[in-house]
């Protein structure tokens, strides 16, 4: 073993308690970082999945300007056959066509302006969790039936229930007056007030007939195997679209920019907190190393007198810090990984969380998402800051004069 390496290792264990205390601070912060970052990413995954499962899907086929200007005329022609083609090409049933308009829904007593989705009942459940959230009655059954499912809040506002009739009044694609009468077959409760108050779904055939869509719709929703598969799936969908069409395939990030911004804002505040933690640990390391260098001033004078260059002494201090940092990082990653892995299987719940989660249609337990990034990012940053903390004690040695150093008691 090289002499500097051997010296560094033995110096590290001159004061085992001090070394372990400093290493312990690093281990603790590493465990905390691994767990918190994993939990955070798990929550983001849940937030994204939850947001996308309601309506958006991983991507949609739309008219080019529909995303920014949801007008009735921004259509996807022959939408149901196109959705069928995409399903066949992708060999996936997680593809569903939709139309969307805004209309006046009237019961015997009240009227409200709502958003009406025309959906393919057979496939909607594959891309949206609304069909699964029907709490009273049933979901839509046939593509042409004159039936509707509405949100629970809307049902209360309209004072209607399953079996009652609603009259829908709106504008057709050509601007003409459109109206139909539908039977309420189901009421859903998504837990999201805006959706439960403002949204209703009818079969796409009825939608196209009522609003004179001539076979058109507004969005084909596609769900893939996960967020990681989105770019490839997006390219495949794009290739399926008719060559002469100008349809676009925005992904979830484009469709819900607010979601990513919310996540980024949350990440920003969390990472500031982590930064403070890392800085505190770095100061603990700086304190230890500075103390260690100061108490060995005489010894450093001796080895300089024997012919060791100040630069090599600086490397010795850096090496000691690196050894301590590596021990803290290794133990932190392993312990953090074990703790986090346990929670990825068993989940994490707080008192009263299940009730709150149910309101937002979230699972009652949170599950951390463990991957290379969540496992290594925090400890890597702690290690880098630990090494930065070694710079000052190491550089300080460069100015040390052997005679002055040896005079220190």
């Amino acid at each position, binding site marked *: 073993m090289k002499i500097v390496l051997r010296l560094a290792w033995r110096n590290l264990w*001159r004061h085992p308690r001090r070394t372990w205390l400093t290493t312990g601070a690093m281990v603790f912060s590493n465990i905390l970082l691994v767990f918190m970052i994993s939990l955070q990413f798990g929550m983001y995954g849940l937030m994204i999945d939850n947001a996308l499962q309601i309506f958006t899907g991983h991507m949609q086929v739309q008219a080019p300007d529909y995303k920014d200007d949801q007008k009735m005329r921004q259509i996807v022609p022959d939408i149901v056959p196109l959705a069928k083609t995409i399903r066949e090409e992708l060999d996936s049933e997680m593809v569903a066509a939709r139309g969307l308009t805004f209309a006046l829904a009237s019961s015997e007593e009240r009227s409200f302006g709502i958003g009406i989705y025309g959906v393919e009942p057979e496939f909607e459940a594959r891309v949206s969790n609304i069909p699964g959230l029907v709490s009273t009655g049933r979901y839509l059954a046939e593509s042409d039936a004159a039936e509707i499912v509405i949100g629970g809040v809307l049902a209360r506002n309209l004072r209607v229930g399953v079996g009652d009739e609603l009259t829908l009044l709106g504008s057709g694609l050509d601007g003409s007056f459109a109206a139909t009468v539908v039977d309420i077959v189901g009421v859903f409760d998504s837990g999201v007030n805006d959706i439960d108050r403002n949204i209703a779904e009818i079969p796409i055939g009825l939608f196209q007939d009522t609003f004179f869509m001539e076979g058109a719709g507004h969005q084909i929703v596609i769900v893939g195997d996960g967020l990681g598969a989105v770019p490839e799936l997006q390219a495949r969908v794009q290739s399926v679209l008719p060559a002469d069409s100008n349809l676009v395939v925005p992904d979830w990030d484009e469709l819900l920019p607010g979601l990513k911004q919310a996540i980024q804002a949350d990440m920003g505040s969390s990472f500031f907190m982590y930064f403070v933690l890392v800085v505190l640990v770095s100061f603990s390391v700086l304190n230890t190393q500075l103390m260690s260098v100061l108490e060995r001033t005489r010894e450093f004078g001796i080895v300089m007198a024997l012919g060791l260059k*100040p630069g090599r002494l600086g490397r010795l201090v850096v090496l000691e810090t690196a050894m301590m940092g590596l021990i803290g990082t290794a133990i932190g990653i392993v312990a953090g990984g074990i703790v986090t892995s346990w929670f990825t299987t068993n989940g994490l719940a707080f008192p009263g969380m299940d009730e709150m989660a149910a309101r937002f249609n979230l699972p009652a337990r949170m599950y951390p998402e463990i991957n290379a990034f969540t496992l290594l990012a925090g400890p890597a940053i702690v290690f880098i800051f630990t090494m930065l903390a070694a710079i000052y004690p190491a550089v300080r040695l460069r100015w040390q004069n052997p*005679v002055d150093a*040896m005079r220190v008691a």
Partner: protein
Amino acid sequence: MSAVRCVDLCKTYRQGDQDIKALDHVSIEIGKGEFVCLSAPSGGGKTTLLNAIGGLDIPDSGEVYVDGERIDNLSKGELADLRLQHIGFVFQAYNLIPVLSARENVEFVMQVQGMPAAERREKSNAILKEVGLEGLEGRRPAEMSGGQQQRVAVARAIASRPALVLADEPTANLDSKTADELMELFTLLNKHHNTTFVIATHDQRVMTYAGRLIRMLDGRIVDDIDQRAA
């Protein structure tokens, strides 16, 4: 060519409001293989002179030559190289590295020099035997007596066969028997290896071993005696 040559060295320290002349126009020349004692009362300038010769301290003015090379204008790194390759140090307080064993302390300089492990081991075994520490190679400084530690320090200083050994009060912390043994060892090494020894001391018995005695007072050389002639 002389082993050491100092020309008109001056060094002043500031102590409180006072300027203390540690070296006051000192000029000496020490030949290769000489065994020299620098004698002075405390504060007489012997350690400062020793430090200047060893490149541990830079004089305010004057010139220092070691083995014909001027060293007072060298950089810190160059001085470290000079000490590593040409000079062995023995200090009053032993100054061993506490986390290394006796053998590792002895091998330290050789290892920094880049000597292969087998050669290092061979040399350290031989030198530890020579200084009477056979069987104690694995002990750390804290597990040895003062005399044993000083022997390790001597072994470390001479293990790489430096041309010049500088010793600052090497017997100050030793009993008279151990001090005599150490001085006999120095004398032996001086004769066998033609190593130049410069020893700073105020111990009368140590001075009797020296071939040449240089007396200092208040930073000046006041006497330079060839004891062999006497």
